[in-house]
């Protein structure tokens, strides 16, 4: 089973975001991160805690478009999530509308905040998440519209903003990785800037840099993103996303 799709590469790359996290709550936001988090727990990261999207921690592995399994292992109403996130035992993967080279992320509004061109959701929990526990990002369509020189509203705190705000902002601040339909990136560039970690099979480095609205740090030869294992492909195709919803988010 060596054939795989781009969407499956992305799902495995999202799963890898939680590698080594142990017994913490995974907070995937959006489809591909949800596939990735369930995949991670079903394979190399069995200690992860996952919610049903409402207020129940559930055990087991289940499909993204099906009701969760009946086995509840905890009650986590929103107030408990707020308590938990401040303990640091959580790692979210959020979907930014804009993200810059330092990992400042915007989900609030496009344009001037006082009177935005496009009002989005609001800052939600992004400010608190990013200064309390590890944060990763998922961008299903890597373009210069999303990867911008400067975000209009800093919701998720970037490395430069955390440093400027002082030790209490930096103490638990940790941006892990950015997974897109083209590549995997992290913040290992100079001064905590975004660095190209790997390009997905079939993608060139030039394609990634051309679709990034700022100078991306590239360290010599850029490897290919790892491909999903046979075990992962079976889980993705038969258990977690049997209806192939991933292909609509990341077309082949």
């Amino acid at each position, binding site marked *: 089973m060596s054939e795989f799709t781009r969407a499956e590469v992305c799902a495995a790359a999202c799963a890898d975001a939680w590698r080594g996290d142990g017994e913490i709550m995974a907070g995937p936001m959006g489809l591909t991160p949800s596939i990735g988090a369930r995949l991670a727990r079903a394979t190399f990261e069995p200690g992860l805690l996952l919610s049903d999207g409402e207020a129940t921690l559930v055990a087991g592995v289940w499909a993204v478009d099906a009701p969760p399994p009946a086995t509840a292992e905890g009650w986590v109403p929103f107030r408990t999530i707020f308590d938990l996130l401040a303990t640091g035992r959580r790692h979210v993967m959020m979907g930014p509308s804009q993200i810059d080279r330092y990992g400042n992320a915007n989900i609030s509004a496009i344009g001037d905040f006082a009177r935005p061109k496009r009002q989005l*959701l*609001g800052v939600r929990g992004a400010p608190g998440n990013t200064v309390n526990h590890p944060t990763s990002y998922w961008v299903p369509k890597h373009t210069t519209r999303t990867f911008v020189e400067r975000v209009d509203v800093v919701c998720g705190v970037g490395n430069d903003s955390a440093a400027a705000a*002082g030790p*209490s902002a930096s103490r638990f601040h940790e941006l892990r990785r950015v997974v897109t339909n083209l590549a995997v990136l992290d913040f290992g560039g100079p001064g905590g800037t975004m660095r190209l970690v790997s390009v997905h099979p079939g993608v060139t480095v030039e394609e990634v840099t051309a679709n990034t609205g700022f100078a991306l740090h590239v360290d010599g030869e850029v490897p290919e993103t790892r491909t999903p294992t046979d075990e992962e492909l079976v889980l993705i195709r038969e258990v977690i996303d049997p209806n192939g919803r991933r292909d609509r988010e990341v077309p082949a």
Partner: protein
Amino acid sequence: MTEDQVVAELRSGMTIGIGGWGSRRKPMSLVRAILRSDLTDLTVVTYGGPDVGLLCAAGKVSRLVYGFVSLDSIPLEPHFRAARQSGAVEVTEWDEGMLQAGLYAAAQRLPFLPLRAGLGSDVMRFDPGLRTVTSPYADGEELVAVPALHLDAALVHLNRADAAGNAQFLGPDPYFDDLYCQAADRAYVSCEQIVPTEELTARTDVTRLRIHRWMVSGVVEAPNGAHFTSCAPDYGRDESFQREYAAAAGDPEAWERFRATYLSGTEQDYQRAVEARGATTGVQA
């Protein structure tokens, strides 16, 4: 009480907290009663859903205090967007946890509570009134001093209540309804059904009784009162109706028709129109 009696106790210019979360268990019949009233210039504090959209569309709101506004299954609230993009409302956009801390500070009669959330983000830039506070202990941490969000009134919708104001949630999450009630001078509970006190715990656990009569100034029986938001397990979100609402909100003529059909009469008229809609579309209200 009736919805209109509750609204008669509110005044223009008040700060009003609205319970629920997004498009979940919102006190919509009370919101609709505000739409019918001459109240104006309200400050609304909430984890926002269609309550925010409807109040903005009716010009009732001068300031919004929120962490997000969303219809959940439809991510962006169209009337809220329009209000923001036309500059019709002033906003205090905080981190979700800051909102909880502000309500908790008010409930505990504290001026503020320290929180890490907000540091380094534009929440601090866009709300220049926010201050930080330095720990008096050896750690010396500098944290956000989230100011108390004191409410003149709170409006929440629960599944069951007794006539005295003891109320319970039967769905997955109490959200922050108890906190809104405690942060407010006066709290009003609408519920699917008012039952005798002994029935509240006849079939469910006492831990679901999160709202206590000492927090509550008035109770309204409002069957289907959270419509079209969800009120699990009594009913789910009316997705079909919500889609109609969102589509209408994008077009002035369609919105006028929506308003005339659903929002021009009493709560009974609203519920009848929803029922009639279900009969014609085959969708269960």
